[in-house]
């Protein structure tokens, strides 16, 4: 071929994977709705297209699987065979097999899969029902037309084909002009935009200074206006670039109907999955990293949350459990909720477990608030079920969920009510590359604190701070919060010896604490730059940035500080 074959194959792989991803949720939907010609047609077409392209590229195994699956789907669409759970399973297995085959092609490992059993299973579905469909003689006659047709000579009688049957229902689909762009190129644009933002910040600083000094100079005025315009355009560009990296969370949510179906089937539970807000757009890196934590939470909800049918019946609940997954944007944050109507988390059991595992002492357990107790489930090595099930006992626990989400600068909130259910709320910032921060000074060092983690700032006098059992606390309008010297955390120079102190109240979901520092310098939009060699998940620093004045400043990670300072997670 004149075009590079490798390139065509890689394009085929991407498109084939995307197409297959569409099948899972469609099939689960059909299983729920029953026979739906439009949906079946769509699945049929995906298999059909896949087969066609694979044929050209010589991927015989894909052709074989897709061909057999297509035959089953065709009969299903035309009402010649009916839906069974077995049929769904076999079709979904075919989808899995196709994915596996695509993986082999992608990794070029040259491995072959044994598809004979799958093909037999698929053919068996056809066999079983072809006997049943013998009643319809019209159909079987049509299918028996084997004679080859010469180009133009058509026997008029064979043309009496029911047009309705073969006509493909027109499909509603939005046509969007799209362009595939290499992710690296996109990241480069993002990176450069970040640089432009930094330069813009510096320029703004200089112009502000000039304007103060030479307010009457028309050239300075001119410069001021131009830079103001540049400021606006840069902000717009930043948003536009950010949007380029945004994708609907559907990409992740699409896998869940199948997941819930498979887990609940294997556990013999009945679960209805409700999904909303799948059009919410999130950053590409969120899409990449949020899948695993969500899968883990959903697994837990089906496995540990939702009760067995008989238990639910005995408790007067609807026999079918419900899991609701939703996503929405709130300010400059994305909220993803996984809510079940199961039995809730038994906090006493959680505490007992934590004690036997040696994670906490009996005294600590007694003093623990409800929220602190819930957070124990995120401790490494914690699991409330003694017998590791096939599903949950993989040696990874909820601690991995928390770590993964922290990597996205997000956090998890859990609320639970015994007998009524549990809600996991994941909160992550809209974008990861550019954030709003508060610039602060502690001693001689400057730091940036992400604005999304700051609840409020205030000024207190030193005597408002008291010490209880070795812990400094501060009383803010009746709320008692622990307070830490920022310079003590960072190991920087000593704090100013002033009677008045500035306080930043950090809020990470329900966890709140205060940082005492010397000066608040103001809000700034900054670009996060990674620091080479710094393990951001085991420190209190997110990265660094260059300020408007051209200074390099560390960006603090409040979640890291809370882990490091409050010991919520063992480090």
């Amino acid at each position, binding site marked *: 071929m004149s075009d590079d074959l490798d390139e065509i194959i890689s394009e085929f792989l991407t498109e084939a994977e995307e197409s297959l991803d569409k099948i899972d949720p469609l099939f689960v939907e059909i299983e729920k709705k029953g026979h739906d010609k439009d949906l079946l047609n769509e699945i049929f077409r995906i298999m059909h*297209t896949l087969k066609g392209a694979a044929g050209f590229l010589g991927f015989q195994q894909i052709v074989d699987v897709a061909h057999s699956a297509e035959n089953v789907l065709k009969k299903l669409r035309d009402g010649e065979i009916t839906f069974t759970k077995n049929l769904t399973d076999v079709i979904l297995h075919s989808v899995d097999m196709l994915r596996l085959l695509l993986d082999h092609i992608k990794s070029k490992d040259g491995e072959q899969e044994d598809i004979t059993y799958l093909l037999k299973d698929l053919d068996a579905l056809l066999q079983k029902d072809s006997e049943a469909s013998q009643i319809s003689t019209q159909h079987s006659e049509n299918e028996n037309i084997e004679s080859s047709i010469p180009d133009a000579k058509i026997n008029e009688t064979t*043309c009496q084909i029911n047009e309705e049957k073969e006509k493909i229902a027109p499909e509603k689909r939005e046509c969007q002009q799209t362009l595939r762009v290499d992710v690296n190129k996109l990241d480069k644009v993002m990176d450069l935009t970040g640089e432009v933002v930094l330069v813009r910040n510096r320029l703004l600083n200089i112009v502000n200074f000039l304007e103060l000094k030479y307010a009457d100079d028309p050239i300075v005025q001119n410069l001021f206006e131009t830079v103001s315009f540049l400021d606006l355009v840069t902000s717009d560009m930043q948003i536009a670039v950010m949007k380029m990296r945004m994708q609907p969370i559907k990409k992740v949510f699409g896998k869940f109907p199948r997941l819930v179906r498979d887990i609940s089937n294997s556990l013999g539970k009945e679960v209805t999955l409700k999904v909303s807000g799948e059009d919410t757009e999130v950053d590409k890196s969120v899409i990449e990293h949020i899948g695993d934590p969500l899968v883990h939470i959903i697994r837990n909800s089906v496995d540990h949350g939702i009760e067995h049918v008989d238990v639910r019946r005995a408790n007067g609940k609807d026999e079918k459990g419900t899991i609701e997954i939703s996503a929405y944007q709130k300010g400059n944050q994305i909220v993803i909720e996984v809510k079940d109507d199961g039995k809730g988390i038994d906090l006493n059991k959680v505490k007992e477990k934590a004690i036997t595992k040696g994670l906490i002492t009996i005294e600590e357990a007694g003093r623990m608030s409800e929220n602190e107790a819930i957070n124990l489930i995120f401790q490494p090595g914690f699991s409330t079920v003694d017998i590791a099930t096939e599903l949950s006992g993989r040696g990874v626990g909820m601690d991995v969920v928390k770590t993964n989400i922290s990597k996205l600068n997000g956090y998890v909130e859990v609320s639970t009510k015994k007998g009524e259910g549990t809600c996991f709320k994941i909160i992550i910032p809209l974008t990861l590359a550019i954030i709003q921060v508060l610039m602060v000074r502690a001693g001689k060092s400057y730091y940036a604190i992400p604005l999304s983690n700051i609840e409020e700032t205030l000024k207190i006098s030193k005597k408002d701070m008291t010490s209880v059992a070795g812990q400094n606390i501060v009383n803010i309008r009746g709320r008692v919060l622990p307070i830490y010297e920022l310079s003590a955390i960072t190991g920087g120079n000593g704090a100013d010896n002033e009677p008045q102190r500035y306080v930043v109240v950090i809020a990470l979901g329900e966890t709140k604490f205060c940082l005492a520092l010397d000066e608040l310098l103001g809000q700034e939009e900054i670009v996060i730059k990674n620091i080479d060699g710094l393990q951001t998940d085991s420190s209190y620093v997110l990265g660094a940035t260059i300020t408007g004045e051209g200074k390099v400043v560390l960006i603090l990670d409040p979640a890291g500080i809370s882990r490091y300072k409050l010991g919520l997670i063992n480090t």
Partner: protein
Amino acid sequence: MYNYKMKILIVDDFPTMRRIIKNLFKQIGFENIEEAEDGAIAYSKLKNGGYEFICSDWNMPNMDGFELLKKVRSDNDLKSLPFLMVTAEAEKQKVIEAIKAGVNNYIVKPFTAETLKEKLDKIFEKLGK
């Protein structure tokens, strides 16, 4: 026998397929090849004029190849355009329908540049008569 500069429209909903078929046409020696992702888009492109050959897949969303064929044949501006239908396998009854509706020929996936050329030869041979 035919003009290698003629403008060809390839209609298929799967981008990889369009690219493969486009390559096959290029191998034969054609240069002026456009693409459309379904019958509806194809039809509006055709209406803008200039096309001399259509190579369309059957199974597509929105408007399938058969619908496109019927629309083209009932359109005074387009009704004499050569139309090659791409089908997955020899689905006889479908092929009969297509021939009845006025398709010039059909080709079964997967095919090589040689098979495509044979089909083109046949089509233009007939048209030339």
